[in-house]
């Protein structure tokens, strides 16, 4: 009982801290890569106080709900966007021998299903805002989810085939180094599709500021807006954690897997999160038709090919 409570507290703590770390890292990495001065100013050394200042600002801003908005849906949307990512963290293992809050037999299936729920928050926001641009943004969110969920599911089921289990600790337990080349296509497809599902640049067409203001989030301000941004960072953490667990061997490192497993997991998640930020800085936004084309003409066939490759090699050598 105590063990369960401690584990749940740790999950909640990770949920509270990791997204903020990713947010802070994004400020600084982008500032360095693009030579921005703004984020490097507050508080002196490397602008460490910027995130704190942002938090203070968000916490005391007025909560405006437009009169025309669908009030309850509008107010509920940030919660729906954020909480699913907390729930996914419960099945993510950080180390061997039960260092996971809940070893669910169908953990992989659970993680994919619940991750998809977060997107509904953005669709709710787009609908409830009673704003033409928000509605367009919400539609684009929905279109993006539908196109990219499929390659993501195929890539994930390729790992399930390789491991012969849906439990996330089970998958890492089965993982061997030669899965890296074997599942490489699946890993890239999963990561790219995940980015698209999170609407991270270069897949940020639903919030494209130059044409639809800020998409579904246009009417939000104050803490509710901050919750949406937090949901984005929590989404990055969850995507990087799932990619780590499924494709990069989770807690398995060069040495001391049992003692330092959590460190290897965190390290891999951090490297992937850096990659997410790097992609945002380097790539221009894709147009809506290019987005759809990438999903259906490249990612889906690639992931089907990965399924075939996994099946053939598994039966031939396993």
């Amino acid at each position, binding site marked *: 009982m105590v063990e369960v409570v401690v*584990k*749940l507290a740790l*999950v*909640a703590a990770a949920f*509270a801290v990791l997204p903020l770390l990713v947010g802070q890292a994004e400020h600084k990495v982008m500032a360095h890569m693009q030579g921005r001065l703004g984020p490097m100013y507050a508080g002196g050394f490397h602008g460490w106080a910027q995130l704190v200042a942002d938090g203070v600002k968000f*916490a*005391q801003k*007025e*909560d*405006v709900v*437009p*009169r*025309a908005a669908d009030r309850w849906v509008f107010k509920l949307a*940030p*919660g729906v966007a*954020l*909480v699913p990512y*907390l*729930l996914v963290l*419960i099945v993510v293992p950080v180390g061997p021998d039960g260092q996971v*809050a809940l070893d*669910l037999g169908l953990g*992989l299936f659970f993680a994919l299903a619940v991750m998809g729920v977060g997107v509904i928050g953005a669709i709710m926001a787009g609908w409830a805002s*009673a*704003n*033409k*641009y*928000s*509605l367009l943004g919400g*539609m684009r969110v929905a*279109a993006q989810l*539908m196109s990219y*969920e*499929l390659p993501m*599911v*195929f890539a994930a*089921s390729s790992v*399930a*085939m390789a491991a*012969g*289990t*849906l439990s996330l600790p089970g998958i890492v337990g089965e993982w061997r180094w030669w899965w890296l080349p074997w599942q490489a296509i699946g890993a890239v497809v999963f990561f790219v599709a995940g980015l698209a599902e999170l609407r991270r640049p270069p897949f940020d067409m639903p919030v494209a500021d130059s044409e639809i203001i800020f998409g579904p989030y*246009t*009417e939000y301000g*104050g*803490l*509710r807006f901050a*919750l949406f941004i937090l949901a984005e960072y929590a989404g990055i953490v969850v995507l990087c954690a799932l990619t780590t667990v499924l494709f990069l061997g989770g807690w398995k490192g060069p040495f001391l897997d049992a003692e330092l497993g959590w460190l290897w997991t965190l390290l891999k998640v951090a490297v992937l999160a850096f990659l997410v930020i790097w992609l945002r800085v380097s790539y221009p936004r894709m147009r809506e*038709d290019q987005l*759809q*084309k990438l999903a*259906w*003409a490249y990612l*889906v*066939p690639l992931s089907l090919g990965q*399924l075939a490759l996994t*099946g*053939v090699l598994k*039966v031939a050598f*396993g």
Partner: protein
Amino acid sequence: MRTYFDAYVGLAVLLLVGGAIVGGGLAANRLLRPHRPTPEKLLTYECGVDPVGEGWAHSYVRYYVFAYLYVVFAVDAVFLFPWATVFSAPGYGLTTLGEMFVFLAFLAAGLAYAGKKGVLSWV
């Protein structure tokens, strides 16, 4: 049956924790923030100019065909998961592999057909 659902108790607790984080944050926020609504402030922001017409404008949902495709493929994809855990178990081997290629061929043919029909281009 009882033990099966026991695993989900922790999940329910975490859901409550999540609700408490969001709800508690907003409640604390309520004490900190001002509340001075004016008619101008409550107007839909849209793009900074006063909105014309109503927000739920008619628009053509161009991607409904994608939605159909997604539903068809996703329903198929769900069956992959239970199959994936047993397909290489002793006694299955080549038979299930053959079945997998039948499955993939169906999906690929469907995708190729949709592509040929021009459905996969966003208009």
